[in-house]
């Protein structure tokens, strides 16, 4: 058991080349803040990138920041905040949910897990803001993709290929993100007392209005009491965030209150409280309970997801709340994960996918953590993995069972005329 702690891209390259030559799998790690997500790994060695740290370029006027992959996210966020800027996709912090520390995680990990936050509706995820990467493939080769400018279609977008790849394609050494100005001010409207279906309708109406809502979440009964230190009370709360310049926010808040006035009583939550509220939603505070009760992250068409939740609750005990206008459902199961039931209901009620982000290791080893894909797509994904990592040494088996991907290793060799 060896832990490599490289401090330069050249050292990362050497370590991967050694592992490639020896066909020895590596666990790729930043701070390990999301280590509990995915199928449990059984690797002898660890490549710890936390020493590969530091901002390499930050030009506020050009809206761009580059840093070594192991740079702490909090360091980047602080630097940007000093200049009135931010990562607009507000990457979530899995720490509270997984029972770890808050404020951990690296910039490379943000991309590898394709993190996002409540502003996903308007601003997208890490994949939408990544401009360029430097990385080392499982072949033991250092390559780059993209650049440092916002608009670029030169060659395939391998930077996006890294988004949500969980360290299974290449080891990131340097990442460049687009940054944006932070909003001058924000106000959240909380419509109280709505059931899930009325909340879905209210959120769809708000998102389809010219109120330019940047986040829409629904906390059903009991969930509302678990954010903002309980100050919101226990009644259901349907939350709409309005951000921007002062006069614009005031106007849009009035517009939305008018539009949704009949839906239920509306409260306004301004400034710091609003920020804290959305951070709590982002970081899944309602389920940060210190247990390892199974938690699912479900992505579905926003207006359809509540039908799935209702059907699920007929058959299993579960708590749920919604972000992304309903398009992101966080589910905590009282008992077993019920993977097959859940995934069948997702297919039935509009499609999408479910990831088991928290569960005891035995569950994560026994059932597919990531959504199983149809055969043709699974084969394509496996071929892509093999083209980056033919010896299957980078986080093997984290996303799919190793033997599944091993069968297609070295595709390029065999598939030539």
């Amino acid at each position, binding site marked *: 058991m060896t832990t490599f*702690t490289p401090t330069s891209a050249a050292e990362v390259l050497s370590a991967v080349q050694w592992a490639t030559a020896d066909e020895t799998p590596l666990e790729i790690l930043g701070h390990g803040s999301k280590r509990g997500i995915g199928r449990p790994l059984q690797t002898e060695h660890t490549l710890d990138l936390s020493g590969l740290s530091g901002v390499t370029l930050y030009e506020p006027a050009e809206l761009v920041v580059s840093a070594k992959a192991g740079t702490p996210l909090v360091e980047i966020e602080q630097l940007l905040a000093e200049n009135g800027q931010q990562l607009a996709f507000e990457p979530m912090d899995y720490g509270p949910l997984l029972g770890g520390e808050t404020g951990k995680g690296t910039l490379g990990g943000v991309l590898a897990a394709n993190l996002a936050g409540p502003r996903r509706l308007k601003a*997208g995820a890490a994949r939408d803001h990544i401009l360029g990467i430097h990385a080392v493939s499982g072949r033991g080769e250092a390559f780059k993709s993209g650049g440092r400018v916002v*608009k670029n279609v030169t060659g*395939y977008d391998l930077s*996006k290929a890294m988004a949500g790849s969980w360290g299974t394609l290449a080891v990131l050494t340097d990442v460049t993100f687009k940054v944006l*100005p932070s909003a001058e001010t924000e106000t959240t409207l909380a419509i109280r007392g709505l059931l899930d279906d009325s909340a879905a309708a209210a959120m769809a109406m708000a998102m389809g209005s010219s109120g330019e809502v940047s986040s829409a979440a629904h906390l059903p009964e009991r969930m509302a009491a678990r954010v903002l230190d309980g100050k919101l009370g226990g009644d259901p709360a349907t939350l709409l965030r309005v951000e921007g310049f002062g006069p614009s926010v005031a106007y849009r808040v009035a517009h939305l209150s008018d539009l949704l006035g009949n839906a239920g009583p509306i409260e306004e939550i301004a400034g710091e409280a609003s920020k804290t509220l959305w951070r709590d939603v982002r970081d899944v505070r309602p389920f940060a309970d210190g247990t390892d009760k199974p938690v699912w992250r479900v992505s579905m068409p926003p207006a359809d997801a509540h039908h799935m939740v209702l059907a699920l609750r007929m058959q299993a005990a579960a708590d749920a709340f919604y972000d992304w206008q309903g398009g992101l459902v966080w589910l905590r199961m009282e008992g077993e994960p019920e993977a097959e039931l859940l995934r069948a209901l997702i297919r039935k009620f509009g499609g999408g996918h479910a990831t088991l982000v928290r569960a005891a290791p035995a569950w994560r080893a026994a059932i597919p953590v990531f959504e199983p894909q*149809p055969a043709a797509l699974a084969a394509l994904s496996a071929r892509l993995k093999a083209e980056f990592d033919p010896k299957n040494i980078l986080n093997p088996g984290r996303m799919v069972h190793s033997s599944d991907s091993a069968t297609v290793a070295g595709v390029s060799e065999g598939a030539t005329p």
Partner: protein
Amino acid sequence: MSGILMPKPDAATLSRRDEIVADMRIIVPGEGVVDAVNEMRAFESDGLTAYRQLPMVVVLPETVAQVSRLLKYCNERNIRVVPRGSGTSLSGGALPLEDAVLLVMSRFNRIIEIDYPNRVVVAQPGVTNLGITTAVEQDGFYYAPDPSSQIACSIGGNVAENSGGVHCLKYGLTANNVLGIEMVLMNGEVVRLGGKHLEAEGYDLLGVMTGSEGLLGVVTEVAVRILKKPETARALLIGFPTSEEGGQCVADIIGAGIIPGGMEMMDRPAIHAAEDFVHAGYPLDVEALLIVELDGPGVEVDHLIGLVEAIAYKNGATTCRMSQSEQERLTFWAGRKAAFPAVGRISPDYYCMDGTIPRKELPRVLAGMRELSGQYRLGVANVFHAGDGNLHPLILYDANVPGDLEKAEAFGADILRLCVKVGGVLTGEHGVGVEKRDLMPEMFNEIDLDQQMRVKCAFDPNHLLNPGKVFPQLRRCAELGRMHVHRGQMAFPDIPRF
């Protein structure tokens, strides 16, 4: 055609042409197969008209099953396929090959679903970019990416090229506005990536497909995000004595936390050409003209216009006009949008380039261009998506003067080399295609390009889909897959710790 070598036509395929055409008529019955030379002329080039080539046969399928059967047929028989949407590519992405089937997707022209609660339109790939907005605008919605060719270009082609437009600093490129696609692989398999939910599962193959220039798969369905149209939009027309001052104004606007809906810059030759053409009332005594458009609720637009105006004057603006009506706003844009045809009036031909640079390098790149313009003795006019650093130099030449086209291409290549040198890239939104293919090594080394080609191998291991585009040198997938074990140079033979 100038000096770009395309893959050598396959003699075996050409010798079986009649048989292949007959089989195509079985796969796509009816009027969907075109093999008469005079009828194929319409397809011999795309928006990059300097390059022309007749295809072996043109096929216009109508169903996903037909696309799947066609690709499977060609894959099994080693026949090349070039996909084409509306044929508006400016980089030769849809340039036919002599021995290839040209697969034209224009009959896939239906809107499949409009879903307002989820703010999604699902369309077939041949629907035009503007067609999507047209389908939803009566309800106050629109599709944000708006390439200049939006009347004609197809949404499938937009996915292939990751198309941009003047609004993408605020609203993103195609990649940020597409939620899902259905596509057919070269082996005939039909695959769905994403859908109406906000993110696809597994690897971001949707991200890889977007901008892959028709080399990885054929898109047969697209789900896009639609947005509520902003309540108002107003534009400012700002003139500066120097491009430096204009550039600084752009930086200060962004520095103030303002991301305008559109922010375009033109240089003196472009201003004059446009003003002579459309009489938009552009000032003629300035070196740089900035159009800044602010959109959103009226109170927000009024607030920001005031801020931008102050920033403009602080940076030495000599003129600053605010649109007083929707009519006047459109007039401000008319000159910019007509910049290409306007330049077409002052020169027999023009060649449009598409580099992106870090914005602060604008003065240096403009100076470099002036120098090159002198060396090549060809004029150049510049329009510039100022917010995101995407330059469109228009090189003026005369195709009837022997050697002028080659000179224009060499001039263009030098401009793009300059873009890369200052930290930019070869293409911001038009794609590599055949046009910039041989310049790829300016930006990428062999390892970078090999890894991109390996991605191609995962989708199309026989290099049959749109070969000769994007990559300067095609390498067999077997060769690319070979591992060179670096054991000999291992720095850490004994499992070291750093």
